[in-house]
């Protein structure tokens, strides 16, 4: 395979990148020479990978994540590693251990998170496409806030091998791009079975977006337009739904009662898994170096205190508590029951309708520093976490602006019908463009 290099030296006004690769090499293939930004929690051989955490400063993976191997095989040029909330824990990218990324549409606002760097890099025109990861909305939220398109694939459709785990049972790697077509192109490259991720499925994606959605039934859950959702955002999404109706889709009002417990269940599960996943960062093998003169548990304590940010420490503590003996049944086991109920609700609704449509985020992008209270930040995930709990595909596509800031339309579908949510987003995008 022929190797070429490209020059990649964009002006990074919104601090989207943690690492820039200025002359990345690339081969031939469907993405030949296209610079693709990769979120910093996806392992890249020879390129520092930190999850935007000080504890991984200096860690250079000796191997590529499966998706990175696939990108390289498709000829893409790895343009750099993008900023994020540390280990994916956040909705603003302000929780980066290094610096916050700003919104390309308004430097006083956040880009959303946790894949804020990837979304900002795309929205600012630095790269045409990027990889993000979505544990509870981390692709869709910044896509909505920055005005680009982001897909969280069906759980298992994209290999997680090489993705530094935050919450294994919830997260997926997915594409972000300026338009649905590019999201689809990137999805074609990264989807498929990988024997190294035994939770992945042999469901490759080989689809060209189609705009014909005549006869489609779209569920409109009342919970997606309830309290906490900015009326201006809701209005914007309603206009989009009207346009989809004009294209031949039929809106069907529905309800997801289990959503009352979705957020609580989500935060118990993701913090529990995180408390275990992040335990390996002890300064013994990589990243920040433990003081070898100390006893090992003192050294661990010191490294972890110095290396992890506040939000990460908070979530580790929460998860450790939820898994403790005597509390497991009260929290983790109950959260799993709630998760099953969310799945059942989605299965039930999606047996009547083809897709579920609503806003991606309840508001437009926050001002920097606005979500200082962690609970109010957690609450803003309410519309995105259900898709992760249910493992279903969900896409965010821009649908108008409020106060000059982009709004995201979210389309969720049946498991392994990523093609369908892409088609709905594509047909909407065609209308808006024309």
């Amino acid at each position, binding site marked *: 395979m022929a190797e070429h290099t490209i020059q990649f030296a964009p002006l990074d006004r919104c601090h989207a990148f943690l690492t820039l690769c200025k002359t990345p090499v690339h081969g031939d293939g469907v993405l030949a020479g296209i610079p693709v930004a990769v979120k910093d929690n*996806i*392992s890249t051989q020879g390129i520092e*990978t930190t*999850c935007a955490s000080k504890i*991984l400063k200096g*860690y250079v*993976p*000796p*191997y590529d*994540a499966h998706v990175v191997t696939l990108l390289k095989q498709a000829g893409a040029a790895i343009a750099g590693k993008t900023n994020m909330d540390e280990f994916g824990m956040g909705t603003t990218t302000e929780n980066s251990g290094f610096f916050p990324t700003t919104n390309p549409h308004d430097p006083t606002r956040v880009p959303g998170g946790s894949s804020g760097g990837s979304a900002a890099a795309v929205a600012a025109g630095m790269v045409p496409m990027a990889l993000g990861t979505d544990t509870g909305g981390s692709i869709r939220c910044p896509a909505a806030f920055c005005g680009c398109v982001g897909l969280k694939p069906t759980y298992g459709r994209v290999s*997680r*091998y*090489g*993705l*530094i*785990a935050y*919450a*294994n*049972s919830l997260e997926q790697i997915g594409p972000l791009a300026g338009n649905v077509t590019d999201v689809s192109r990137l999805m074609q490259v990264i989807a498929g079975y990988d*024997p*190294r*991720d*035994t*939770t992945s499925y042999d469901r490759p994606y080989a689809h060209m977006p189609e705009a014909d959605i005549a006869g489609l039934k779209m569920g409109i859950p009342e919970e997606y337009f309830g309290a906490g959702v900015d009326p201006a955002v809701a209005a914007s999404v309603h206009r989009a739904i009207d346009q989809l109706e004009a294209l031949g889709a039929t809106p069907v009002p529905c309800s997801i009662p289990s959503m009352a417990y979705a957020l609580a269940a989500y935060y118990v599960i993701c913090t*529990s*898994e995180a*408390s*275990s996943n992040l*335990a*390996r*960062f*002890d300064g*013994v*093998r*990589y990243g920040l170096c433990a003081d*070898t*003169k100390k006893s*090992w*548990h003192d050294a*661990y304590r010191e490294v972890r205190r110095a290396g992890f940010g506040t939000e990460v420490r908070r979530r580790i503590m929460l998860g*450790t508590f939820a*898994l*403790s*003996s005597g509390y*497991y049944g009260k929290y*983790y086991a109950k959260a799993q029951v709630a998760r099953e109920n969310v799945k059942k609700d989605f299965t039930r609704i999606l047996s009547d309708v083809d897709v579920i449509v609503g806003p991606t985020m309840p508001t437009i992008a926050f001002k920097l520093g606005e979500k200082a209270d962690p609970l109010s930040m957690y609450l803003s995930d309410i519309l995105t976490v259900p898709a992760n709990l249910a493992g279903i595909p969900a896409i965010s596509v821009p649908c108008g602006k409020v106060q000059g800031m982009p709004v995201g339309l979210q389309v969720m579908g049946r498991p392994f019908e990523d093609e369908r949510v892409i088609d709905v987003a594509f047909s909407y995008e065609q209308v808006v463009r024309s």
Partner: protein
Amino acid sequence: MTETGIIVGLEVHCQLDTKSKLFCGCSTDYRSDGPNTHVCPVCLGLPGSMPVLNKRAIEFAMRVAKALNCTVIRESEFSRKNYFYPDLDKAYQITQYDKPLAEGGYIEIESDEGGEKRVQLTRIHVEEDPGRLVHMGNPERGKYSLVDYNRAGIPLIEIVSEPDMRSAKEARKFLNKLRATLEYLGVFDSEKEGSLRVDANISIVGSERVEVKNISSYKGVEKALNFEVTRQKNLIRRGLKVERETRHFLEGRGITQSARSKEQEHDYRYFPEPDLRPLQVQSWVKDIVLPELPDARRERFIAQYGCSLNHARTLTGELRLANFFERVVAPDTGLCSLAATWIADTLKGELNYRDMSIDALDPGSFTRLCQLVKSDTITDKSAIEVLRVMLDERRAAHTCETPIEIVNRLNLKKTSGDASALTAIIREVIAENAKAVEDYRAGKNGAMNFLVGCAMKKTRGRSDPKDLNREIALALKPVDV
């Protein structure tokens, strides 16, 4: 020591003898290589790596489950056991918790009262071995530890028994039977260093139970349990209570030591491993064909070779010993009873003494040695000498002379046939021991044994004591005048 009123249960961890590790493709054959040479992102726990279950390890574990009469669970599951320790690369061990691979089952052992006894099993599960710490340095120059992840990810099977054993000896028998069964199944090699680790729960009836961790040898189990029985009985005798606690066995000193106070007890925060799917392998059970197991082989040895029960038990108690025996007698079935005695009684002891594996010895040589004994070419005593030479040469150079070469070199051929040589020696003995001769003539029976002993010494064990006895008696026979 009286061992009545004690209750023992064992948790036995054995390394499954697969070619690759439990969750990655790294080779398990690490013992002769340098530290951290059999590692990859998965077994190093590098960020982003994911486990892929080794089917072979599960199949091995299921062979064990079937052989031990366990029930394989319809859907079992891997869980994470979370704790911090430098040898644990991910800071959690992937193991099985509330949904183990198999439950129930039993192992039959010979009970202390004689007769067979069933030790019930609680469960069998599969888990990964952690790495290993090597402690370096001395107190003056500072202590430090090095970590080797070669062992990280080696598949282990954990077999948990019910508290059904009543003595340290029964525990030893349980372990021996388990080891033999695992070896017969081809899933375990007891000769690999560190391939077995045992935690023992022991209590005196009516008292708290104590868990002894870290026992890494077969002999250690009996030692540790005996130590605990004495310790616990002494406490009770002095009117003190046995604390419920975990203790460590210090192999070198043969004692147990309190491990940690309750405040420091771990909360392992088990939860299902999200990177692995649940295991549905019950349907495999019917396809597993078990080989001949120790009990069946023991019965066959009795029936086919005429072995005594004890010899058959000893020989079939270790796979290598049983295989060796069958190879020795294959070319010459007339050797059966002789070879059984020599292997079970003599060879096993000589090997243990040298800490050698029977693999070092070639069965063909042993056949020839047995033939020399059977044909009366050498005495039992000389045969032991030949065997020792063979073993020592093997150990030093991995090769050895043939038995007949050794016999010739050391001039060990039995002298009985050579009557004139014997006569000369007897004449010497009689001449040198006038007192004993007198005693013999006076009717003291012990005197003859003494004279035979002197003659044996002179022939360096080459002559048969029976022959010597006869010849000396003949020589001292009162001459009719």
